[in-house]
């Protein structure tokens, strides 16, 4: 069972907002993770190193979390390897087709007042909720 974590979640959100703001203020870049990673797969001269540095920063953060707060990386959700692979394919393909994910559309885009990002965010929240609901109701929460 999950517990309500209002204050840590709010603090985590503020950190994400500060990170996105700092990246914009220093480099003028948008902190959309799928866009940053996608750009690494189609490298352009002068527009690749910062993406790599950002991703290394993310992974270093993951290493720090694993070392000092391992509970934050708990993978206890009952999902088969096949389900995780299908999910990864959908997330990778969909985020590129739709030009963004939770960070790029959900945070940066909506903060910019983008109608596209609002539409995308409402859409992925709805399909995410629908799939989560189907897994819980029809598959007993395990796939």
């Amino acid at each position, binding site marked *: 069972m999950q517990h309500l974590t209002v204050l840590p979640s709010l603090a985590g959100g503020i950190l994400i907002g500060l990170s996105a703001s700092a*990246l914009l203020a220093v480099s003028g870049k948008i902190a959309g993770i799928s866009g940053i990673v996608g750009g690494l797969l189609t490298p352009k001269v002068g527009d690749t190193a910062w993406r790599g540095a950002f991703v290394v920063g993310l*992974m270093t953060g993951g290493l720090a979390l694993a070392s000092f707060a391992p509970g934050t990386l708990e993978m206890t959700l009952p999902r088969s390897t096949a389900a995780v692979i299908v999910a990864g394919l959908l997330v*990778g393909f969909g985020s590129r087709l739709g030009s963004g994910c939770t960070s790029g559309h959900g945070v940066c885009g909506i903060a910019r007042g983008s109608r596209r990002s609002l539409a995308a965010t409402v859409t992925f929240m709805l399909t995410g909720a629908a799939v*989560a609901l189907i897994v819980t109701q029809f598959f007993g929460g395990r796939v």
Partner: protein
Amino acid sequence: MDKARTTGTLVAAFACGLIFALGLGLGGMTQPSKVIGFLDFTGAWDPSLAFVMGGALATHTLLRRLIVARPEPLLALSFAMPAKTDIDGRLIAGAAIFGAGWGLAGLCPGPAIVAAGGGASAALVFVPAMLAGMVLHEVLTARGK
């Protein structure tokens, strides 16, 4: 000066990635069970992740106004601005597909990369599949041109 600028943007990108990761971890986004607890509102709904998004949105909306009021970023020539403004089929289809994957495993790109950096087993399977999905999109797009 140019070299100093480049170094500065790299250090900034690394630091921003690090802070972003800590925010995701502290906020609960790197726990798939918590993400599903948020998305599946029929069970014991856990609205915590709405506070992650709310906190990030409030902070960035406010600071963004001050930042883009300046003529240019500190170490770059201009602020990136997405060119597209219309809501088209690709946007909605892509978001729908992305959401389905997010709701299936409870991982989206940022938290997945963070968790993979921390060696979390599910993320180590998820991230290569996600990269393959991204490459598949590039291949199909290139073929369509």
